[in-house]
């Protein structure tokens, strides 16, 4: 509930927005979002990057958040799912209130493998939502689902990461094909995979630089893309390793440069 902080909230509105004497003209908005990244600003502030449900990617200043007496406390740390109120600013918005919806950070940092996978997820989310202020509800829901799954520890972190990467790319318009030929739609199964062609290809469409992953790996990639966790959980370590390599190559091709955090993921 947000209304519990009316007095402090009003004070913060005055700091971020010129007083107009008419509340209707004060540019405040409320949304829910996941904290993707934080950067230190000045003595005690932070710039917080969030992926919100209604306003897409938003960068906002959280004032005094690094002080132990901050009223935001740990609510604006990465992985936190928050209900947030922001005041529109000239260059950056200003966080005026924040309440926790789900503190995924705690259970994620308790396990180093989960932490490295979750960091790669956040970096991908930031890169795939290039435009600030463009709503991407599908991607937002996908991100919330991925962090929740990681926090619950229901599946191996590397699998959750690869499933998120494949589905995130699909939402962004780069859906890979793991059954029919990505070029001519010839019905599968086929054996060859091409990053630049966009997935599995038939022998006649085969471009240069194709690889021939094991059938188990292709089945695992398909399961991760469609969310078939029974197949994914039952997969062998060898297939997981090969699938993560293919996923990383596919991601790098579409993002045009690699993710810094992906190299540090503990598999």
């Amino acid at each position, binding site marked *: 509930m947000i209304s519990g902080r009316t007095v402090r909230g009003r004070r913060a509105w005055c700091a971020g927005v010129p007083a107009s004497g008419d509340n209707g003209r004060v540019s405040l908005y409320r949304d829910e979002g996941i904290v993707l*990244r934080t950067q230190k600003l*000045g*003595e005690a502030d932070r710039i917080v990057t969030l992926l919100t449900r209604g306003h897409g990617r938003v960068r906002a200043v959280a004032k005094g958040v690094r002080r*132990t*007496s901050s*009223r*935001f*406390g*740990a*609510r604006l*740390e*990465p*992985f936190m799912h928050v209900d947030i109120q922001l005041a529109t600013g000239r260059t950056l918005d200003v966080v005026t209130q924040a309440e*926790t919806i789900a*503190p995924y*950070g*705690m259970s*994620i*940092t*308790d*396990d*180093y493998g989960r*932490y*490295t996978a979750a*960091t*790669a997820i*956040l*970096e991908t989310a930031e890169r795939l939502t290039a435009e600030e202020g463009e709503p991407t509800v599908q991607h937002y829901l996908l991100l919330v689902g991925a962090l929740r799954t990681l926090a619950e520890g229901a599946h191996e972190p590397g699998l959750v990461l690869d499933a998120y990467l494949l589905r995130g790319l699909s939402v962004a318009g780069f859906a890979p094909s793991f059954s029919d030929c990505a070029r001519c739609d010839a019905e599968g199964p086929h054996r060859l995979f091409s990053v630049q062609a966009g997935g599995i290809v038939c022998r006649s469409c085969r471009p240069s630089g194709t690889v021939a992953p094991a059938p188990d790996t292709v089945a695992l990639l398909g399961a991760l893309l469609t969310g078939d966790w029974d197949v994914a959980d039952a997969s062998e370590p060898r297939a997981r390793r090969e699938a993560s390599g293919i996923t990383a190559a596919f991601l790098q091709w579409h993002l045009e440069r690699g993710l*810094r*955090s992906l*190299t*540090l*993921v503990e598999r």
Partner: protein
Amino acid sequence: MYEGVVQNLIDELGRLPGVGPKSAQRIAFHLLAADVDDVRRLVSALTEVKEKVRFCATCGNVAEDELCRICLDQRRDPSILCVVEEPKDVVAIERTREYRGRYHVLGGAISPIEGVGPDELRVRELMSRLADGTVTELILATDPNLEGEATATYLARMVASLGLRVTRLASGLPVGGDLEYADEVTLGRAFEGRRSLDV
């Protein structure tokens, strides 16, 4: 826009953290108006700090010699080692006057999104310090944020086989704060780490 050396000074001051163009201009004009001896003292302090200060070969804290003041102090307990992120954390803990052990400065926290992994920190040096068996308790005093927690989790797992007592600084309510305004994570931690009052 000023000319020549004055603008150079403003530009150089403007590169300091937290100093904007207006502040840089104010400091520059303050220095122009200041006594020449005061300015010389400032210049020599800046030069000396770059010439003399380096990092302690043992713990990574700032030092004026090969070893820092704390590592040289024989009265400090060598069996307790406190791991911190930055040299300024050593100063913060020293101010409490509660801790009489030694330190190990990591040089940051694990942050994959910034490209900082365990290899970029002084983890290898920590493991070699622990190898001789002198240390019996390791206090993980990394920042109570996500990177700090993840770094502590990583270190705890790395030293698990050494049979040390591994502790983490307590998290909870700040002294002088209101319970009502505590966030859920901090309040949850405060409950987890509650202690009995022996009256």
